[in-house]
């Protein structure tokens, strides 16, 4: 970290810097052109100078006007097309990204690795593969920002947002909260530690032995009494959760909804929102009962339940 240079540590950073540089050169040229004309005219046509000031034929002003309007328009059209196609390429989430969960609260970042390791204000991640952060906030809006990756994503309460990056170089990078979130907004900073795949495996192994995220979730599943309805042989007619994640769930009101994390979250906190076809809406809401920290492993657990053959 120094005052003149920001490392390019992700594939996105390379793409973004290319665009930035191109725009910088282009607008530099435009700016110089405008300044050159303004200064040039100012000198040449200063009051009383000898320069010729003949009439301007009407067609000149007309053609010129249309000319630069059309030119600017098409230039902008091209710029838009070029930058947005780069963006659309970047934003397609890779199918099997490595998933890490982030819960933000005033004023800290809580990280839950898939292995169950928890971190605060630090995020370890492997280099070279796509990593998907699934993030939510316990209170206000925060923003997970890593300048070296040229990436950021707001983290909202009541909802999951995602950010996918692929780090290119191992190293330690600054993590900022970029969305104003109250008193200690400027202290909500941390670091992202990128390790090579092997080092990452080492690092995980070196952490104190603990349950994986899904295993922690199973415990919460049991202690919250979910099994009483969703378990084998329960008295209540509740949908089985095996193989639910990633499937398309038919709804009581007609239509389907794709069962992603947001769906699972809503199913637990706002069960009336999407009632699956064929079931009575009797599931209680766990809003206020389960914290964001507990939801993360719980959802990880439900995701891990594979369909029974």
């Amino acid at each position, binding site marked *: *970290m*120094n*005052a003149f240079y*920001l490392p390019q540590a992700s594939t996105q950073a390379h*793409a*973004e810097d290319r665009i930035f540089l191109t725009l910088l050169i282009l*607008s530099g040229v435009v*700016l110089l052109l405008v*300044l050159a004309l*303004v200064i040039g*005219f*100012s000198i040449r*046509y*200063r*009051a*009383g100078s000898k320069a*010729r*000031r*003949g009439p*301007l034929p009407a067609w000149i002003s007309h053609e010129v*006007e249309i000319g*630069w*309007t059309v030119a*600017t328009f098409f230039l*902008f*059209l091209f*710029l*838009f097309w070029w*930058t*947005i196609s780069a*963006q*659309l390429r970047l934003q397609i989430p890779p199918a099997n990204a490595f998933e890490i969960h982030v819960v933000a609260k005033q004023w800290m970042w809580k990280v839950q690795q898939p292995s169950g390791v928890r971190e605060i204000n630090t995020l370890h991640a492997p280099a070279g593969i796509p990593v998907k952060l699934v993030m939510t906030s316990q*209170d*206000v*809006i925060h*923003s997970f*920002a890593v*300048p070296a990756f040229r*990436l*950021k*994503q*707001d983290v*909202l*309460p*009541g*909802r999951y947002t995602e950010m996918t990056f692929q780090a290119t170089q191992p190293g330690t990078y*600054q993590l*900022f*909260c970029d*969305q*104003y*979130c*109250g*008193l200690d*907004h*400027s*202290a909500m900073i941390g670091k992202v530690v990128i390790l090579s795949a092997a080092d990452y495996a080492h690092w995980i192994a070196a952490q104190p032995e603990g349950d994986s995220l899904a295993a922690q979730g199973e415990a919460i599943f049991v202690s919250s009494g979910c099994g009483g309805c969703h378990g084998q042989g329960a008295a209540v007619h509740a949908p089985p959760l095996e193989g639910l994640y990633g499937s398309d769930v038919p709804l009581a009101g007609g239509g389907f909804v794709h069962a992603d994390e947001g769906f699972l979250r809503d199913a637990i906190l*706002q069960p009336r*929102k999407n009632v699956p076809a064929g079931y009575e809406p009797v599931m209680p809401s766990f*809003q206020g009962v389960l914290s964001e920290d507990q939801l993360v492993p719980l959802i990880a657990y439900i995701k891990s339940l594979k369909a029974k053959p």
Partner: protein
Amino acid sequence: MRDIETPQAAPQTPEPAKPSYLADGHTVASWIFTTDHKRIAILYALSITVFFFIGGAAATLIRIQLFTPHNTFLTAGQYNRLFTLHGVVMVWFFLVPSIPTTLGNFLLPLMIGAKDVALPKINLLSWWLYLGGAALTIVCLVCGGVDTGWTFYTPYSTLYSNSCVLAAAAGVFVVGFSSILTGVNFIATTHMLRAPGMTWFRLPLFVWAIYATSIVMVLATPVLAMSLLLVMVERVFSIPVFDPRFGGDPLLFQHLFWFYSHPAVYIMVLPAMGVISEVIASEARRRVFGYQAMVYAMVSIAIIGFMVWGHHMFVSGQSPFASVVFSFLSFIVAVPSAIKVFNWTATLYRGQIRFAAPMLYALGFLGLFTVGGLTGLFLAVVPIDVAVHDTYFIVAHFHYIMVGGTVSAFFAGLHYWWPKITGRLYSEWWAKFAAISMFLGFNFTFFPQFILGYLGMPRRYHQYPDQFQIWNVLSSSGAVVLAVAYLLPLAYLTWSLFAGRRANANPWDATGLEWTTASPPPRANFETRPRVTSAPYDYHDPDVGPTQPNQPPRQTQAAE
């Protein structure tokens, strides 16, 4: 007030020496209850000056705090309150009203040949509402201030902030209605009170600018009012509106807020564009290049400006597809701005350019607005915005346009019409000196912030990692120059009021109806109703061009 007004004889007998509007009553009541658009302009000018310096004082404290990385000059709480105060005051109590309510109020009726605005009493009411909003803001300050940022994002503003959100939001709500009424008034004035012969395409560009601005004010501000009302209700009555725990959506607030606040940036820049067109034409002694294109550009900015607000929400969790649409429209809305920059430049071509103080401010505008606008284009590009959103890059972008652009233009206009408003001439040397120091001080302050932003320094940080210090030191030092430069006009303009030379009716040899009446104008603006017979900016025979320096304008647009 009415009874103090000079009981003149019937207007048919023109008297050469009508008292100026300044001499028309000297009591306090004759000012604060006046319905004279010119006096109301002065009232506004004084009020916004006060708020400019309140906002400037907050900026000063911010820059002192940021001088070193771990400064404890201010606590985090104080710092958060200061940048919020700075943003709220500068936007709603200074920049939004700045040009429209001062120069606009003063000049709109003069430029179209009217006696006053369409609804003089409503005009006065606008100012009183402004005062009401200002009073609430002061109440908020006294109660400890507000710490949400000028954007009032939920759920922080509704559920978490321990500060005086209510008074601040109410203040902005009230001042919003002041701006709506001003807009209504100006639109009605432009439509209804143009002098005979003043067709739409004979209107000076400043009038067009004010007209376009008024449309934006009228159609955008109510949405801000409602979004703040919802914030207040949620905060006071705990009625969930944006609260995600009960199914609300915090992003809805952002949609509503930016539906206003993006158009609001055009409220802030369109009047500036109007001023610049007047000043450049007059100082270059040339017809404005592409008058009609300038008009269409302003109107299309006013309209398309309503469809781009989502570019403030690229990383907010809005749908990426919506971001595509908003990015596209942000490029489109930049086209008319580009046209304007090119037209101003082309107006200089083959002119007889003078460099009086207003022109220096105007040239400053041209450069700084272009830099600000071009960086706006960077931000309209999604991958770049993802990188620099909520960093100092944004702060630099908008200060370049709002301070470098609009405030410079405000000063350009203030100097240009100062003789008309006050009947006095200021010291040209000091004015030029201030213009140049403002330009230099400005770049010194805000250019480093582009670099800071690119390196990733987040905005609204009261302490920051060490590596950013050098740029912050530069920026803070520049702010000293800037502060001095802003204090200069206060001094020499005040001085001119008492000791300045008297100005004649048309010290710049400019076209436009406002220059055909006395400086300062009489209460009823014109001795006789003007009649307009030709296009604006008739500085030279279009078939010849301005051949001599200081050639007086052709007297075709004048009183009958």
